[in-house]
């Protein structure tokens, strides 16, 4: 079920009505679980087995770990006198190994399922490039949202092992955390510590919360249907016939894709969080005005935030502060000098994070390269920082408004260029197309009507442009006032209602859905 499918909308409407009208407060989580499982069941009943196994693994090992840890703590406490600090350390170390083993088993099983389903064919394909007799692909089903829910259970397993969250003893409740359906389509990746309480004890129905959720859903659909699904048509033409559309067209691809991806992704997140909000569940934000970022690090702190923090907390930090790394850090500082030595370990961890990020995005080489390119850019900007500092000291541009605007524009263009990997889905082609921007000068061509041959007509461009201006103004409001425009609108109820109605009508009329818009699935169907 896609967000934009009619079935999904009916599903949500029925669920919300039943949920608020007929289900007592303390049983609401049960309905959410049933709805989530139904969501999966209708997509493909076999998915239930996968998500069930993943949830059960994390659930069981969490309880084992927690029980074991509390036992050894109790043992330590009870036999305080018999331990000196040395033997205490020893006892801790040996028992910690058992606890680590539980964690390792949970991770191996769950990440193993993810790897087996999602990456087997990628590996085979890669091997085949070296073989004369190609291996045949395996026919494996890839459960919907497996990347998202696997990451959620992995973070849970690690948190349990660290002792930062309490294990959930009710399997069904844990299954709900794993399978909460709005998140399975586009994320975000929630943490057990953030989501559990609100999921098991949702807020009761309340006008403000419900209205804000509802208008957020509408806003999400508006962005997705009116902008993203419309621009996709033009993008499809541009990307699928790269030989015809070089040079300035690549820039058009960059711009269209930046707008398309932003609207599609944030729109989807708005729908997810909006649905959760109308159900009284608070889901963590995933975006914070990423296109206003002044540098790439800031960008990644604002774009797909739940993924960014996941990689930071569960890969970057553990790697960086692991004893091996600390030793390496010491060594490199001694041998390579303080300045470089300090950075070596950080960069190694950073490299691993971006390699993993690339692979996580999809089983294809262009994602890997895309991830590593991000690493390169981050590293470069890090290395150039002293240079920047000198520059700023000399000219004093920093903090000036026009310079901020320049920084924002620079970051936007940089990130948009990196996204080309995702557009062309072929590493060589992406480099070729990017290069063509600099040696094929055909800007004039853009204005002789060739943009109207991409499958979008004048009306489409107008609608998309006006809608993008609206999106920009709403973002600008948040940037300047520090809160969402819808919260301000809610204080003037009639205006709020009017906006909601207009959003609904505009989406129904100007949305790129239904017959004549079948092309909208291209982004997803390329594999």
């Amino acid at each position, binding site marked *: 079920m896609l967000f934009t499918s009619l079935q999904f909308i009916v599903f949500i409407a029925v669920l919300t009505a039943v949920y608020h009208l007929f289900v007592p407060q303390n*049983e609401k989580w049960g309905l959410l679980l049933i709805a989530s499982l139904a969501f999966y069941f209708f997509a493909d009943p076999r998915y239930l087995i996968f998500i069930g196994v993943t949830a059960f693994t994390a659930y069981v090992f969490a309880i084992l770990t927690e029980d074991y840890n509390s036992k050894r703590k109790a043992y330590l406490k009870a036999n305080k006198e018999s331990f000196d600090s040395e033997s205490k350390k020893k006892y801790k170390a040996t028992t910690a190994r058992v606890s680590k083993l539980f964690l390792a088993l949970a991770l191996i099983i769950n990440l193993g399922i993810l790897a087996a389903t999602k990456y087997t*064919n990628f590996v085979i394909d890669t091997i085949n490039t070296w073989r004369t007799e190609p291996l045949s692909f*395996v026919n494996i089903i890839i459960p919907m949202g497996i990347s998202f829910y696997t990451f959620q259970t992995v973070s849970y397993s690690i948190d349990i092992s660290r002792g930062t969250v309490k294990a959930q003893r009710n399997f069904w409740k844990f299954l709900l955390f794993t399978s909460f359906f709005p998140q399975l389509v586009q994320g975000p990746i929630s943490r057990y510590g953030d989501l559990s309480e609100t999921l098991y004890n949702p807020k009761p129905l309340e006008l403000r919360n419900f209205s804000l959720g509802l208008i957020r859903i509408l806003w999400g659909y508006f962005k997705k249907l009116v902008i993203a699904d419309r621009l996709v048509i033009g993008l499809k033409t541009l990307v699928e016939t790269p030989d015809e559309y070089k040079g300035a067209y690549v820039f058009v691809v960059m711009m269209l894709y930046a707008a398309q*991806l932003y609207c599609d992704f944030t729109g989807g997140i708005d729908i997810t969080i909006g649905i959760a909000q109308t159900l009284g569940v608070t889901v963590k934000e995933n975006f914070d005005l990423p296109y206003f970022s002044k540098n790439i690090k800031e960008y990644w702190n604002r774009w797909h935030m739940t993924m960014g923090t996941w990689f930071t907390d569960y890969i970057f930090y553990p790697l960086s502060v692991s004893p091996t790394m600390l030793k390496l850090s010491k060594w490199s500082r001694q041998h390579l000098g303080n300045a470089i030595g300090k950075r070596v370990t950080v960069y190694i961890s950073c490299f691993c994070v971006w390699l993993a990020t690339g692979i996580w995005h999809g089983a294809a080489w262009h994602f890997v390269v895309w991830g590593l390119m991000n690493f390169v850019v981050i590293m470069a900007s890090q290395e150039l920082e002293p240079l920047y500092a000198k520059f700023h000291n000399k000219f004093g541009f920093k903090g000036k408004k026009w310079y901020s605007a320049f920084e924002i524009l620079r970051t936007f263009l940089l990130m948009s260029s990196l996204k080309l990997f995702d557009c062309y889905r072929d590493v060589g082609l992406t480099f070729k197309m990017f290069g063509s921007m600099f040696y094929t000068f055909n800007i004039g061509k853009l204005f002789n009507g060739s943009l109207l041959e991409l499958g979008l007509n004048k009306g489409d461009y107008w609608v998309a442009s006006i809608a993008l201006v609206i999106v920009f103004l709403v973002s600008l409001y948040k940037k300047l006032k520090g809160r969402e425009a819808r919260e301000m609108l809610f204080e003037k109820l009639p205006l709020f209602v009017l906006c909601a109605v207009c959003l609904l009508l505009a989406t129904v009329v100007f949305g790129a859905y239904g017959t004549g818009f079948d092309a909208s699935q291209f982004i997803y169907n390329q594999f």
Partner: protein
Amino acid sequence: MNKKIVSVLLMASMAFTAVACSSGDEDTAPVVLSGGQATDAVEGSNGAQDPAEVAESGSDAYVFTYNGTQIRMNAPADDIIAALGDGYTYFEAPSCAFEGMDKVYTYNSIVVRSYTRDGADYIAAVELKDDTVATAEGIRIGSTEDEVRAAYGEDGVAGTSGIEYTLGDSFISFIFENGKVVAITYTAIVG
């Protein structure tokens, strides 16, 4: 009591969604938009498709060659008609409410028909009129039923007066009289 109501409602809503699901377009597989980039198409798909298989299942169709010109069913008609030369008589018939135009080009030994879709013409059918022309498999008017079966196989669908073989979005039909082919027609399946 309350629980009962809830469960009944649930069942009802499930049934409703089940109905809604089955009536919808099933072919849009559930898709996951994953991380920072939009994609991750594979999630939610039922197994990876062999790329070769995809290419093959594209738009296969019967092709008839006349005087060196390949006439493929459902192919754009303009170039083919141009290549076939001027030796034809022409007939056109608008369908009700201008929903398209059936055009018929009659040559010495064949009749070519086209249909209109979105302002462009496509090959709708080719009819073989005499035994000076033959299909790619060597069947011509006057061939026997057995020869047809030998050339095209046994998986044809027999009708009251002939047999049809389907390939991709086209089919070829042979009409028999007294065990001999009296007419051969290629027809496009217009989706």
